[in-house]
C-alpha cells in the first residue's frame, strides 16, 4: 500500500504507537494528524491508519463515525460552527444561524461552492456565558449578534 500522508505525518504516527501502554490509543490522535494534513479523513486514510495500528478499516470507520470532529468530506477553509443548545438558544442562536445562512447562501451542513465557507450547527461548546457562541476553525467568538457576525465575516474575506 502506498502511504497516503506526508513522511513527517507518518513519522509522528509511528511515535504515537509507542507512546501509549496499548497501541490502540494512538487511533484518535492519528486521525487528528491525518485530518490536520488532509482536511478530512478519506477511505484511503482510514485503511492506512488501520494497517499502522493493526485493526480493521471497518473498526477505524466505526470510530470515525462516532465522533463529530472527524470530517469524512472536505469542509470549507473557514468552518463555522454555531452552538444551538439551550443556553445559546435562549440568547438567540436561532436568529444568528438564520443570519449566517442568508449571508453565506448555504444551508446547515453545507459547504459553499467556492470551498471558502462551511456552516454547521453543533451541540453545546461549553461557553454558555458567551452565548450565542460560535467557533470558526479553532477560533472562538461570543457573544455574536448579526452586526458582530458581519464584522467577523468581513475579516475573513
Amino acid at each position, binding site marked *: 500500500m502506498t502511504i497516503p500522508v506526508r513522511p513527517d505525518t507518518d513519522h509522528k504516527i509511528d511515535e504515537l504507537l509507542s*507512546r*501509549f*501502554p*496499548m497501541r*490502540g*490509543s*494512538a*487511533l*484518535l*490522535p492519528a*486521525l*487528528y494528524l491525518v485530518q490536520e494534513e488532509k482536511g478530512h479523513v478519506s477511505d484511503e486514510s482510514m485503511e492506512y491508519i488501520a494497517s499502522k*495500528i493493526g485493526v480493521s478499516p471497518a473498526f477505524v470507520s*466505526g*470510530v470515525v463515525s*462516532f*465522533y*463529530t*470532529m*472527524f470530517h469524512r468530506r472536505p469542509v470549507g477553509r473557514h468552518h463555522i460552527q454555531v452552538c*444551538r*443548545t*439551550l*443556553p445559546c*438558544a*435562549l*440568547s*438567540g442562536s*436561532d*436568529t444568528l444561524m438564520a443570519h449566517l445562512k442568508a449571508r453565506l447562501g448555504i444551508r446547515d451542513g453545507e459547504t459553499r461552492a467556492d470551498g471558502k465557507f462551511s456552516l454547521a450547527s*453543533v*451541540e*453545546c*461548546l*461549553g*461557553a*454558555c*456565558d*458567551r*452565548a450565542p457562541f460560535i*467557533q470558526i476553525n*479553532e477560533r*472562538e467568538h461570543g457573544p455574536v449578534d448579526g452586526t458582530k457576525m458581519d464584522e467577523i465575516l468581513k475579516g475573513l474575506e
Partner: protein
Amino acid sequence: MAFEPILTRNIRKPGSETIDVYMASGGYQGLRRGLKEFTPDKLIEEVKASGLRGRGGAGFPTGMKWGFLPKTKDKPRYLCVNADESEPGTFKDRLLIEKDPHLVLEGIILSAYAIQSGLAFFYIRGEFHQGCRTFEKAVQEAYAKGFLGKNILGSGFDLDIIIYRGAGAYICGEETALLESLEGKRGYPRIKPPFPAIVGLYGCPTIINNVETLANVTLIAERGAAWFASIGRPPKNTGPKLFCLSGHVKRPGVFEAPLGVPFLELLNEYAGGMKHPDRPLKAAVPGGSSMKILPAAKCDVLMDFDSLAAAGTMLGSAGGFVMDSGTCIVWALHNVARFYAHESCGQCTPCREGTGWLVKILARLERGDGHPGDVDLLAGIAGKIEGNTVCPFGEAIAWPVESYVRVFRDEFEEHARAKACPGKAAAAR
C-alpha cells in the same frame, strides 16, 4: 467572615496561565508540602477528612473513591482527568484549564501521588482548542521545573502525563465511555461493576476525577483538610465551588462561592439578576441540562449536593441556567431533547430509540400538530428510559422530560389543545 475566592484567586492576574505567575502566588507549595509531609495513604485520609465530593456531576466523595483501589500493586494504576466538560450550561472547568492550568496540574500530581499512579491522562474535549494549547504549555513548564517526570522534588515519586483530545462526543464525559475513548474506541459506556478502580483503563485499576475536583486537592494539600471542611455547609457539603450561570441573566459567568450559597443570591447578586427587567424568572435548572427544572416559586434553594437533592433536583455539574417569563417551555424541552437524541451513543435501545421519539413528539407539539395523548406519552417514555440503560445518560434525558412536563403540564396541554406554540416568538429574543 466574608468568603475569599480561592479556586479563582489567580484568574484575573495577567499571565495567570504561566508557571511564573502561579509560583509567585505560592503555587506548588501544596505539592512540596504534600510530598514531604504526607505518605500516599495519609494524603488519601486528608482528602477523606476534607469532605471533598466530586465536582463532575455525581458528587461522590473523592477520598472514598480513591479508597476503592485494590491493595495489591501487581498492575499499573492510572489517573484519568475528566476534562471532557460537555454538560450544557457548564463552562467552569474551561475557566480553570485556560486561566489557571497549574492549579489543576498541581492537584493532578498530588492525586497521582496519593493513589500511586505513575501515568496520568488528561482527557480534554476536542473543541477546547485554546484550553488544550494552554494545558500543553503548562505541562512543559512543569516538566522543566521538575514537578513532572522522574523523582519529583526528590521524593522518589515519578509521574508522566499524556494529554488526550476527545473528538466531539458528550458521552465521553461518562467515566467508562471516557476510558473506551482513551483506548481508541467508540465511546460506549461499560457495565459497572466492575468499577474502574478495579478494572479501568487497559484493564488496570483507574481513578477518574473531574478537573475542579483535582484543583481542590491542591487547596487541601496547601491549607489542610480542617480548613477545607470549615467552608460551605459541613459536614457533607464542604469547600469552595464554581457555579456557572447563563441564559436570561444580566451577567452570565462562572462564580465562586461556598457550597450552599443561596441560588437567589447567585442569580441576583453574582449574575446581576434577570436580563430583561420586565420579564421575571420563570424557571431555573440549577445543575446542567440533565438536572430537573425548578419553577420560580421553588428557586429559594441552597446550592449544595444535599439541599438540591432535597428540593427534587441535583447540583450536577453546577451548570445552572435560567429562563424568563417569555420562554416557551415546550420549545426549551424540545431543544434539550434534541441535544440528548444527538448525543445518545446508541448502545442501549431505550435511550437510542426513546430520545428520538421524544424529539418527534416535542417537535409536533411545538409545530401545532400535537395529539391529545402526547403529554402522557412524553412522561411515559421518560419513565421507560430511566433506570434501563447501561449509564446515567438515560436519567440525563428522563429527568428533564419528567420534570418539565410535571411542573409545566398546563403549558404542554395548551400546546396539544390549541395546536400552536404561543411562546415561540418571545423565546428567541
